[in-house]
């Protein structure tokens, strides 16, 4: 088995946001700036990698009839770890991510990878899968965050992009998020349909 492929597939072929369409809530809600997006992606990747690892370690001990509650408990515990660490060391980030940190628990992406991948595969591959999916998620969140921050606040990582330009604050609010993701999905479809012909 090619280990690199397991990592690579998460970035394009099975990109969590654009192809699997999972984990949309945080992807849309917290991408008001690049910094927020990257922290969210980091938090989600941490939870994803460790939940994949624990689920694939414990897969032979979990009775299949109660596996979903067990997975959710594992994920919720990891999310609590992330919450406590963020709150202790980066309170500003914790505040600006708001309720979306505890909501990683019900992110279908984490549960979906646990159920579809980690419960059937070995520990090393599961960790690689988590890293790959996390990287794909981070990539999309980075582009969403960068686009919205540049258009909506005229800044990039907090630095002004074009002096004197009037930003459109709609891009920072909810509608801008929907439009940006819709247009990204359109681009993805266009690229994929171009390949088929």
């Amino acid at each position, binding site marked *: 088995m090619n280990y690199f492929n397991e990592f690579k597939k998460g970035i394009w072929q099975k990109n969590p946001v654009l192809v699997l*369409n*999972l984990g*949309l*809530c945080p992807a*849309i*809600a917290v991408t008001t700036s690049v910094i927020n997006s990257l922290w969210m992606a980091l938090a989600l990747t941490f939870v994803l990698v460790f939940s994949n690892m624990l689920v694939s370690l414990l897969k032979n001990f979990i009775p299949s009839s109660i596996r979903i*509650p067990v997975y*959710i*408990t594992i994920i*919720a*515990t990891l*999310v*609590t770890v992330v*919450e*406590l660490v963020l709150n202790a060391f980066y309170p500003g980030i914790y505040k600006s991510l*708001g*309720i979306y940190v*505890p*909501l990683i*628990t*019900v*992110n*279908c992406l984490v*549960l979906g990878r646990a159920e579809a991948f980690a419960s059937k595969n070995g520990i090393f591959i599961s960790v690689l899968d988590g890293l790959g999916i996390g990287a794909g998620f981070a990539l999309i969140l980075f582009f969403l965050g960068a686009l919205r921050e540049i258009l909506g606040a005229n800044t990039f990582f907090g630095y002004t992009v074009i002096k004197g330009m009037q930003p459109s604050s*709609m891009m920072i*609010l*909810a*509608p*801008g*998020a*929907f*439009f940006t*993701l*819709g*247009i990204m*999905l*359109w681009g993805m*479809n*266009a690229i994929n*349909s171009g390949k088929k012909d």
Partner: protein
Amino acid sequence: MEIKIILTILAGTVFINNFVLSQILGLCPFIGVSKKMESALGMGFAVIFVMTISSIITFVLYKYILFPFNLVYFKTVTFILIIGSVVQLVEMFIERVFPALHHSLGIYIPLITTNCAVLGVTVLNINSGFMTSEYGLIKSVVQGFGGGVGFTLALLLMSGIRERLELADIPENLKGLPITFVTAGILALAFLGFAGLKM
């Protein structure tokens, strides 16, 4: 006086801070179940019910058990387990008492556990400081109910538009999800208009 507070919270959660269109919670069912109006309505009612019940249980548990015993860090774990059990209970109850309703709603009920609007409203009840304020329980119940109503409203609007969109002539690459997101964006833009509402 209390009526005014309740109405403010209701209007706030249904229109001004609509859970789906302005706080962006519960997108998976919003995109997944909004293809037909009938199933949208069913999903909406189930969500209203689960959100109201879990708001009551989580609030009481947090205020009288987790907080006094210094177990606040168990919040996320306990809340999600409670929501899972409430969903299971609701399913068993409906199956026993209203078999016809269960037949039409059946497949949507287990989906509610991973609806982030439900966990979102329970966390929001705690974060908005209802625990220390007067009538905290009533406020959190109203917020749960209003959140569910707002979710149902957004789902119904979206499904109505999507039923029409099926007949529209859309560019090939925009079909499906992309046009759904652009439509949701326009809906969210309309809901921005409520932001100026003063009670």
